[in-house]
């Protein structure tokens, strides 16, 4: 780096390297490792090992595995044929459909929950259209499972689809010429070659389902206690911190095992020989039927919840409070105009506009903090020494721990500062930092030293080199990384739920609060806010896609 070279004049190289690490590592020590050690310390307390705590942990663990297995199975059921669809067929609207399946993955959980509520909830569109149905969706296990499928299908489509489309079609041709029928081609050639990628995708989906929090709390309710939800309940409702700590450690061990398995599988997978695309237009009746059926299925499944949200936010379907009996159905923008009014005037009932301002403030602080901490680490990791290679997974560690656990660590360690609004952006920075570093690092590494040398040999001064070479490349990466931090902070739910003060709620917390309140106006306002949040997240996604280097930093 140019800046490194300049510094080298004044300081020995090791000091330069240390200066890169001092900020990010100090931050992680204070806000990640110290809280983690406090959680650990709590579990050494005898009270943590009470029979009650073990009973709670046991049942939570059972249900967590149960729902994760079911969710993963259903995700595979939808994801594998979809991966096949995208990897093998060319059809109109393909890229849009694929983008559509990828949208949920980046959406805040409250948005997805609000979307399903708008579609299938007791005050949703389906109930308005078919008022006689006594069918209940919100608060059931199917709601959780379907939301998980909605979230994670894109992982299967991506990982398995990439493997499938990079599979040399000649291998299938060879198998067929050697006497294998369609079934044997699949069983003896295609499937064995795809197995590592299917395993990897399955494990990743399972990991996400296992640590899912918002979906379960918002769509299932607290009667469905996974470990994550139970940590929250024990820490915030029961104020039983030792039990929460015990659960957190169990959770940590489980995710650690899954992560190690995942890394092992992905490092073992065979890289394919000749990536040649064999996309075909559906020709036979069977192919046409399959493509049409899955296009309809996928677009319905992904479009309905996403579109129900904005539609429901613009239609009055029930009486507002105080208007019982006299219901005006129809188009309305009231829900959006009401966002600026605090009808109750109570201290803890914050008007939505205030929550929005809080969220924007937190998000801004998160962007500044995570860039400030991420840049030096990314610069160092762009050209790491051997010691720094060890630091790399360390700095990525918060990625593997759940948001609720981060929140719990904050409560245990910094409980007395919970009144301060500053803890929230710190927690958000912890979540966003790995993404920021993974976005910046390849961009920095992509600037070849030769390019700088060429520029300076052509007469560019060091500052001119930075202006002409480094800055244009880094500007895009910085924008992408900043947007990442911004979007993550805006939608973060788990950690915020545990540490945010009730008088300083964020938009997701406000949505959750309004969603559970009675009255058409409250519900409508939650729909309006969720719609805005969804649009912001989508804009964020587009920005990131546009500005980050292609093919980097996937999962």
């Amino acid at each position, binding site marked *: 780096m140019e800046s490194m070279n300049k510094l080298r004049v004044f300081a020995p190289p090791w000091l330069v390297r240390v200066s890169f690490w001092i900020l990010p590592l100090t931050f992680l020590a204070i806000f990640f490792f110290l809280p983690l050690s406090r959680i650990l310390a709590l579990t050494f307390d005898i009270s943590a090992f009470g029979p009650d705590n073990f009973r709670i942990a046991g049942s939570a663990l059972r249900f967590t595995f149960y729902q994760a297995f079911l969710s993963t199975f259903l995700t595979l059921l939808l994801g594998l044929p979809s991966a096949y669809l995208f990897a093998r067929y060319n059809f109109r609207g393909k890229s849009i459909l694929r983008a559509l399946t990828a949208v949920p993955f980046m959406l805040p959980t409250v948005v997805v929950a609000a979307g399903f509520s708008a579609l299938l909830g007791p005050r949703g569109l389906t109930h308005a259209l078919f008022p006689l149905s006594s069918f209940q969706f919100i608060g059931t296990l199917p709601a959780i499972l379907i939301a998980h499928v909605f979230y994670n299908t894109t992982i299967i489509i991506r990982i398995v689809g990439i493997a499938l489309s990079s599979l040399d079609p000649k291998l299938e041709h060879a198998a*067929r010429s050697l006497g294998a029928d369609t079934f044997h081609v699949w069983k003896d050639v295609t499937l064995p070659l795809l197995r590592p990628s299917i395993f990897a995708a399955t494990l990743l989906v399972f990991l996400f389902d296992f640590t899912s929090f918002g979906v379960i709390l918002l769509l299932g309710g607290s009667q469905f206690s996974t470990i994550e939800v139970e940590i929250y309940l024990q820490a915030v409702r029961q104020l039983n911190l030792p039990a929460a700590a015990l659960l957190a450690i169990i959770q940590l061990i489980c995710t650690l095992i899954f992560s190690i398995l995942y890394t092992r599988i992905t490092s073992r997978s065979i890289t394919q020989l000749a990536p040649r695309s064999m996309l075909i237009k559906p020709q036979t009746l069977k192919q046409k039927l399959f493509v049409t059926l899955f296009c309809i299925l996928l677009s319905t499944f992904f479009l309905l919840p996403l579109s129900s949200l904005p539609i429901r936010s613009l239609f009055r379907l029930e009486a507002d409070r105080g208007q019982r009996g006299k219901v005006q159905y129809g188009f309305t923008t009231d829900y959006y105009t009401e966002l600026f009014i605090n009808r109750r005037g109570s201290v803890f009932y914050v008007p939505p506009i205030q929550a929005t301002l809080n969220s924007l403030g937190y998000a801004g602080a998160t962007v500044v903090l995570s860039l400030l901490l991420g840049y030096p680490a990314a610069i160092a990791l762009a050209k790491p020494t051997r010691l720094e290679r060890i630091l790399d997974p360390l700095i990525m560690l918060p990625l593997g721990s759940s948001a609720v656990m981060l929140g719990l660590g904050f409560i245990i360690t910094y409980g007395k500062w919970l009144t301060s609004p500053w803890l929230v952006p710190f927690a958000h920075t912890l979540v966003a930092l790995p993404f920021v570093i993974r976005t910046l690092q390849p961009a920095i590494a992509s600037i070849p030293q030769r390019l700088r040398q060429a520029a300076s040999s052509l007469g560019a001064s060091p500052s001119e080199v930075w202006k002409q070479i480094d800055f244009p490349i880094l500007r895009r990466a910085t924008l992408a990384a900043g947007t990442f931090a911004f979007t993550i902070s805006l939608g973060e739910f788990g950690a915020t739920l545990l540490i945010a003060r009730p008088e300083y709620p964020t938009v997701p917390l406000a949505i959750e609060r309004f969603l559970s309140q009675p009255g058409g106006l409250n519900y409508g306002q939650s729909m309006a806010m969720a719609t805005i949040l969804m649009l912001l997240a989508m804009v964020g996604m587009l920005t990131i896609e546009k500005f980050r280097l292609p093919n980097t930093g996937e999962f």
Partner: protein
Amino acid sequence: MLEVRNIFKTYEGSLLLNDISFTVAEGETVCLLGASGSGKSTLLRIIAGLEAPDSGLISFNGLDLTTTPPHLRDFGLVFQDYALFPHLNVNDNVAFGLKMRNVGQAEIIERVATSLELVSLTRFGTRKVIDLSGGEQQRVALARALAIRPRLLMFDEPLGALDRTLREDLLNELRMILHRTKIPAIYVTHDQEEAFTIADRVLILHEGRIIREGTPADVWVQPESAIVAGFLGLGNLLNGEVIAQSEFQTEHGAFTVKCTHTHSRGDKVHLLVRPLPNESIRVERSEPIGEHSRNAIHGIVTDVIFQQDRFKVTLENGLYVYLPEAPKKGQRISVPVKVECLA
């Protein structure tokens, strides 16, 4: 015996194969020779059953196979990039086709061993295929195709990915294996040297049509068309005009050529000037070149390339000729040549 009759195939609106018919006899090796894009690989895939023709017939020993799926045809196929199964070792790759045919375990072991012996890879059985060199991978692919004892073997540019010496070795080995096993074969390539080495009969494919068919020697001696002569690089091609019976005028002078075609005055023809000097006449190194020296090419030497036992001499007018001794650059020479009329 394989019979291919009246095959048509269009791809994205353009005619890729235009009325292709030929046969492959018992124990015969037929070579499909053509530039890339001539449709030769598509033809091979149609014979293998991996693609369907728009119309036409594929039959073997009188049995119509046109709609038979590839796995029931018993045709072995060897690809340029081998297409070995990366998740299976050498033995399992070779055994694959036998397992698909539910051959017994003992026989599988025996036939795999025989096939590997045939390609001189006897002790490679438990090796991973991704650890093998290109030549070894191609031998495994060949062994895999041989193990099923196919009724017909097909090769799609099998040696294209290998370097020159390896290619020559493998080609000779392949020739011997084909002779020994007497399996009829179709060999697709764009390399005429390869084709002429291995083929009993050569089919030259151009823009979806077979434009010349015959033994390598026949095709070499009588290319019959300018396209074939140009593709095979048989010599200099000249545009000529008939000025009298057996008399042709070109931009490089007049030539006297005996030909079997019936021409009338003013017809446009192609002449092939073989680059080998007509040995009955000595090369004239000095001026003047008069009107009398018919059937010779003249010009100033611009380039001389050493080629083992001869020199390739290029003249300023673009013509070239092979000479046993190297002239000097800038020298004006006149070389008597053999000229043929390609109609």
